[in-house]
């Protein structure tokens, strides 16, 4: 029984070896070697140069802001979703997931067309004699792109833990005289924290590493750490430096993961 069960995981093990483990080993190999193949830590320490640390700082700043905005938008939405009737609920979730049926790049390009100076939004605004919206090629446009693209990754894990909360707990709190705010703070929020942490990770990590959004909506004017790494691979051809910086970025992400594992003891939030 257990042996045949193990056999079932073979395809996935093969998959992860081929597409996760081997590439990861290569990143580590390149990250810890120089052009001549000898061991070095310089590629990792390169993060300390003013350009790289600034790019990392910019990336952290933008992704933290987007994560917070996502959280503020997603939590109330997840609460509403978890409280409404089933038929409506699946429809709303469908609306929510619908944009994800289209490719991520296309959706971001669409925002470019919407936000451009002579774009769709500004044409409408100028037809209504309203002042033009000038956020394309600014950090605001990048944050908009991040929030738009990653919001579902915040909503779904939170929604998932919220529907599992025993409604009797909430009823009991209300029976015992707690008002809405108190019930939320003492019952709903603590019980949903695992979903929140999981959502934060799922938004923060891709936002931190993205390079496409900053290129398409930021006009390449704001250098994020993802852009630096991408350019080391595609333009500059210094794979060693690119890998070294990737490893540093991975350390950040692992730190974030550890945080979420520690708080999310029952692992419910990951079960989406």
């Amino acid at each position, binding site marked *: 029984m257990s042996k045949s069960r193990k056999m079932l995981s073979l395809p996935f093990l093969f998959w992860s070896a081929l597409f996760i483990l081997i590439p990861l080993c290569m990143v580590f190999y390149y990250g810890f070697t120089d052009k001549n193949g000898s061991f070095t830590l310089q590629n990792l320490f390169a993060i300390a140069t*003013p*350009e790289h640390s600034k*790019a990392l700082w910019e990336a952290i700043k933008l992704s933290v802001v987007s994560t917070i905005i996502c959280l503020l938008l997603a939590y109330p939405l997840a609460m509403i979703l978890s409280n409404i009737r089933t038929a409506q609920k699946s429809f709303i979730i469908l609306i929510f997931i619908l944009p994800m049926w289209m490719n991520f790049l296309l959706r971001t390009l669409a925002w470019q067309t919407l936000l451009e100076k*002579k774009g769709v939004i500004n044409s409408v605004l100028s037809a209504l004699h309203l002042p033009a919206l000038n956020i394309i*090629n600014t950090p605001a446009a990048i944050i908009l792109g991040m929030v738009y693209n990653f919001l579902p990754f915040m909503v779904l894990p939170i929604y998932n833990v919220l529907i599992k909360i025993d409604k009797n707990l909430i009823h009991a709190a209300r029976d015992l005289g707690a008002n809405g705010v108190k019930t939320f703070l003492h019952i709903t929020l603590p019980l949903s924290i695992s979903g929140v942490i999981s959502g934060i990770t799922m938004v923060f990590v891709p936002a931190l590493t993205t390079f496409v959004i900053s290129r398409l909506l930021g006009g*390449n*004017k704001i250098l994020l750490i993802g852009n630096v790494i991408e350019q080391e691979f595609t*333009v500059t051809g*210094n794979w060693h430096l690119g890998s070294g910086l990737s490893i540093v970025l991975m350390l950040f992400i692992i730190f974030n993961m550890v945080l979420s594992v520690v708080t999310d003891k029952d692992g419910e939030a990951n079960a989406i």
Partner: protein
Amino acid sequence: MKKFLCMFLCMVLAMQALTGCGGKKTGENGVVYVYNWGEYIDPETISMFEEETGITVIYDEFDTNEAMLPKVEAGASKYDVICPSDYMIDKMIQKGLLAELNFDNMPNAKKNIGAQYYEQSKGFDPENKYSVPYCWGTVGILYNKTMVTEPVDSWSILWDEKYQDNILMQDSVRDLFMVALKLNGHSMNSTNKEELEAAKNKLIEQKQKSLVQAYVIDEVRDKMIGNEAAIGVIYSGEAIFTQRQNPDLEYVIPKEGTNVWIDSWVICKNGENKENAEKFIDFMCRGDIALMNFEYITYSTPNTEAQRLIEDEDIRNSKIAFPNLDDYENLEVFRYLGEEADAMYNAYWKEVFSN
């Protein structure tokens, strides 16, 4: 299993027989592996080549010189014919990646390509041993006549505060620095630290005054057509296309000089089909074929026979497609500057972007 294999082979044979009727059978004379820029050939010409010679073309595309090089260097995919730009050809020659060409096998390349283009190629291929020019052009300023009313003749307009947030710059290191180096009166192949430092400061100044709307490559075309920006730095080959779409656009070569670039066919040393590769290059140099390609991609052709055959008089005499290079001063061809200089450029580039 054997039966299946047998059937499969029969099917392959049958298919070859079916597709091969008319002209020569495709593939009967082997294959040639071609690696070219994206959107840089009329696909019809490839089919014509296959039909006339019986050589199968395996065609791949790249989007930057820098992305192409590691693939060729690694040698896993053995390309025969590649079409890199000037400075990259220089680099590939120095790295010993290219094979010498035998022009006796390529009469069209000898006859049809204008002598001045071979002369220009000497900047990166001193003895004209390794490359046959395919497309060439300049880099200049594309501006919108409705937004820019003053005469445009200098790179300095890209630093004019009137056009704040209205300027598109190139997002590739050499092209970006070329503009600033030329404006400062220096060579765009400079490896002088002070000159590069000055160019970097110029670019940072331009960025900090928010003159630049975006750093882009191919998108310059669409943004200029869509009236998104007043001024953009663009390749001359795109200029004809954009003007067709938006007649308000005008292209100029700045008086401080610019980059004259050439993309040329070269043959890889580790390719296995040198004979077919030479046939392919020669075919592309045929007047009618070069004309088809010119009309398809609108990048200037160095093929004098094709230039003669162009029917549209406006295009044939177009100063954009075929500028008389003697009219301009300080035109230069990019050279490969060595790894150290490359690293220096990249470091300065990063500084520009992090400011």
